[in-house]
């Protein structure tokens, strides 16, 4: 199945989802991007260059690890994880970012901008900008700046300017809006490095393509390790880039179930979560450059969302995944904050791995299902990132008292402003 063969439909559309909804002033910018991207995609040496860059700079291929202890404890399927956490900067975000960096070089632009929620994408972009020598500005909701200071610290130290966005909910979606505002002003020199498989065409296709490196590697690795294809493949879905990246490896393997795991937050009910497809609180809309499912009210204004994982705390979702969901190729499930922190604790104690809170959503759902499966079945989870950079969030999520004491002492040591 070639998701990106648009000959029978409209370019940039997946079923009725996708499209390019942008101010007219960006028309030629996005056309240039489409053209350059198409050229790169059709040029095998570009992919080769990308692979080599990811090998030498980011340590790819990332391995697949068998979680024998966890599998045994659950008594069901054999659980494997794809180790995107071992990438440079600690998550799959770097795949997309380095790919776009190569395109920016081709387009001759000298400045990049990016939105970031959890900070992972901003961190990756700042890294890429330092490595490629681009100027860079990272937009981040003021609320996220406050809760994700460590990432801000690193971005700044790598030479990026970080702008705290004080509009709206002051989170990811507002940072995206602010990027669009910067882009309509500076498109001549500037490329907007979108961080997930969302936004206007060609971003969903482009991000999916770069992230497909995950699935290509994983399919081979699971086959080599187990002699079989995985029965089920789990990935968390924020914007949907790590999920589509992994799923593409198994798109034509009809016996492999693909499961997108969304942020169930406090559970169903508008405003309680960020599950666009697993719960029934979202509907189709057009915003942030694309047509897809959004958590919105009857007027088309966006709802507040909630998740313990900042990287999943987003109103919209990858239009390609919506299409695959409608066609029953991808199943969507949501897990609650509580299930997620339990899964995280279990992973740390039984296997010595620290999945990011985002990735822990995939773990939580897989744990639920693996238990019911037979011992000779195989499940694969995308460990999209590592949790150790989210210590503030995780310590808060786990309510760690020693940590609080440490922070109080540190504050005292620093003294008043």
């Amino acid at each position, binding site marked *: 199945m070639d998701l990106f063969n648009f000959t029978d439909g409209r370019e940039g559309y997946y079923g009725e989802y996708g*499209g*390019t*909804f*942008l*101010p*007219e*002033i*960006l*028309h*030629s*910018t996005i056309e240039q991007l489409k053209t350059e991207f198409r050229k790169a995609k059709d040029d095998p040496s570009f992919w080769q260059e990308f692979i080599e860059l990811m090998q030498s700079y980011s340590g790819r291929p990332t391995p697949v690890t068998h979680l024998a202890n966890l599998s045994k404890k659950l008594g069901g399927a054999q659980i494997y994880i794809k180790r995107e956490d071992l990438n440079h900067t600690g998550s799959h975000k770097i795949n997309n970012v380095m790919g776009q960096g190569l395109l920016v070089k081709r387009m001759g632009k000298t400045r990049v901008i990016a939105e970031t929620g959890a900070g992972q994408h901003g961190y990756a972009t700042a890294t890429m900008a330092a490595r490629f020598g681009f100027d860079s500005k990272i937009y981040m909701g003021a609320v996220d700046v406050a809760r994700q200071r460590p990432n801000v610290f690193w971005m700044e130290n790598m030479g990026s300017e970080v702008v705290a966005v004080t*509009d*709206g909910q002051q989170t990811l*979606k507002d940072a*995206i*809006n602010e990027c*669009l*505002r910067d882009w*309509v*002003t*500076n*498109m001549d020199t500037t490329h907007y490095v979108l961080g997930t498989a969302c936004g206007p065409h060609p971003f969903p296709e482009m991000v999916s393509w770069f992230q497909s490196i995950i699935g290509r590697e994983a399919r081979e690795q699971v086959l080599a390790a187990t002699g079989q294809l995985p029965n089920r493949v789990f990935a968390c879905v924020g914007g949907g880039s790590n999920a589509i990246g992994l799923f593409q490896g198994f798109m034509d393997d009809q016996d492999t179930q693909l499961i997108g795991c969304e942020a169930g937050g406090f559970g169903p009910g508008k405003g309680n979560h960020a599950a666009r497809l697993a719960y029934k609180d979202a*509907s*189709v*809309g*057009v*915003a*942030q*450059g694309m*047509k897809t499912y*959004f958590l*919105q009210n*009857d*007027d*088309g*204004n*966006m709802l507040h969302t909630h998740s313990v994982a900042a990287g999943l705390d987003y109103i919209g979702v990858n239009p390609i995944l919506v299409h695959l969901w409608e066609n029953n190729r991808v199943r969507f499930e949501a897990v609650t904050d509580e299930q997620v922190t339990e899964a995280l604790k279990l992973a740390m104690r039984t296997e010595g791995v620290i999945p990011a809170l985002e990735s822990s959503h995939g773990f939580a759902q897989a744990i639920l299902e693996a238990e019911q499966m037979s011992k000779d079945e195989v499940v694969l989870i995308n460990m999209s990132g590592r949790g150790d950079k989210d210590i503030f969030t995780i310590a808060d999520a786990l309510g760690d008292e020693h940590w609080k004491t440490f922070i109080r002492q540190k504050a005292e040591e620093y003294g008043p402003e």
Partner: protein
Amino acid sequence: MALNKYITEQQATLAERKRPAMIMTHVVCGYPSFEDNWKELEIMQEFGVDLVELQFPFSEPSADGPLFVKANQEAIENGVRVQDCFEFMAKVTKEFSFKVVMMGYFNTIFKTGQRAFLQQLKDAGGHGFIVPDLPIDEAQELHAIAKELDLSPIVLMTPTNTDARLAELAKSADGFVYTVARKGVTGSNTNMNEEVAGFIARCKQFTEVPLAVGFGVSHADDIAFIGQHADIAVIGTAALKAWEQGQETALRQFFTALLK
């Protein structure tokens, strides 16, 4: 068609009114409140404004600058709904002589339903709509319904467009064309210079439809400049800024200076 006719008529009276260009102003529905909107519109009427954009607030106003972003946000927080905007528009079009176009983002229309939305716009006395995040390539259905209902889809032309694209845009143009004087979002000042004049001239090569010039118009000089090159001056942020600074008094002062 209705809008085209109105604009042609207004155009004809410019000399008599001692106006270098027609004026279109902008109000964000329900910000600071519908009562304030009404007072603003009374003053605009007083100063003989030709057209008014009523912006329907949206939670993601990504083409707007800071002042309008805040206005959109607060209007929503105040509980302004799409229905309230239509009701307000109906009162406005009944009371005032300027013509009204809807301005807003596509999701508001899409979520209401394209036909339902335009029908309500028509019923409320609106004459057209400006939707900055809906490129013509995605607008076939909406434009088709508009044609049926005799509403004008206001197309934007921008300095970054190629000639080919301008030609394409011109095909959809109706009522007037909103030419964007510079890159960026609403709000900051535009330097009205040769570059802008050149851009307007380029637009004219592709369309006969009257041209509005927007983004950062705030001085009498700007109006004079626009009058030389185009047809309609769009006053957006500058008027709202005046209102925020001193309500009726400041807004009257602003228009007095602008239209002196």
